[in-house]
């Protein structure tokens, strides 16, 4: 059975991995992971309101992901214009 503490731990783990992320590819993997964890949390609490500590952790994680995306080298658009 899935324990809420496991979900919280996966969020914490993700935060550490975001800090260590150094490439756009890695970032995309982490973004996918974040989306998965987010949907797991929503599924876990279903109709109930998501507890504040989870909501805060999710917001923080999203903010760190956005921040990290901005810190990584700008996306190369040369292929896009071909």
């Amino acid at each position, binding site marked *: 059975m899935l324990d809420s503490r496991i979900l919280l731990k996966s969020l914490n783990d993700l935060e550490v991995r975001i800090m260590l992320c150094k490439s756009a590819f890695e970032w*995309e993997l982490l*973004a*996918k992971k974040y*989306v998965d964890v987010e949907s797991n949390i929503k599924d876990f609490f279903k109709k109930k309101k998501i507890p504040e500590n989870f909501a805060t952790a999710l917001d923080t994680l*999203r903010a760190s*992901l*956005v921040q990290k*995306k*901005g*810190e990584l*080298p*700008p*996306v190369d*658009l*040369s292929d*896009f*214009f*071909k």
Partner: protein
Amino acid sequence: MGLIKAVADAVMEKAKHEVKDYLIKFMEEEKEKEEREKEKKTEEIKKEEIPAVMQKESVKIEEFKEEDDEDEEILPLIEPEFIKFTYKVKPQDFTIPGELADIIKMLPVEEFACFIKLMMFVFEQKKNFGYLGNTLRRKIGLESFENEKFDKTVENLEKYGVLKVEQVSDNQKTFILYVPFDEETMVKAEYQKPEKPQQKKVEKKPVKKVDEEEKKSVEKENDQQDDIPGKAVFGMENDDLYKSYRTFVSLEIDKAKMRVGRSNFDKIYMEAVKYIDKKYGFKVLSDSEKFKEYLTNYYISAFDIPTFETWKKTKV
């Protein structure tokens, strides 16, 4: 005399036994011979049968080859007029019109699956057409198909007459699915002028705190939204012009990069990421194609690059 007779009888008796034994042996040998001959015959028959089977198999292989050849000569199930449309309001459920169902049920399994998946994919975007890009196979969940197989399947669908591929530019293709047009629920997709990006104005405004609900609604809208300003609109009348506009934008961005310097450009990029996340949602950030499109629009607005309409006027 009696003794001689007894001896003669004994000899006769023995001779009888010997004849019996000889006859039995002879009979057994005969039987064995017959069995051997039978075995030989069956072996010969088997040997004769094997080439026949082989021949049959080779015939089958030839038939397969012929079938493969036939694949290339697919005849269209229909010859429809392909109309690009969008749904006025996205129907709640994904449905297949009866007329279309009658046609596509005749498709081979792979083509059928591919058509349905494509249809479901574009249905999510409220339309019957889409961009035939490298990521399409993954987006519609056909990773099990290799690129070549996927291309072939799309090609076959085109031959069957249920799909049309249009070459928008040198490296841009679109597909249109045949879905019977219903005036009540659908609107023909006509040439749409790229909207003038309003991002710059929004950017200058003080950043407002966006509620979770607002974010969700924005994300939902963006899931369905496909008309991104600055994005190539399918079926554009002036594709070549648009292509040269894109080259122009690319050069302008490069110039701006040189002008503002690396560190400033990185800062602008950071702002762009934050802006795109806030305005269009996190999903856009993780979708590389969409992100590039929104990022381009951000640059267009941030570096004062003329919009397509303005640029076009200078060219005409």
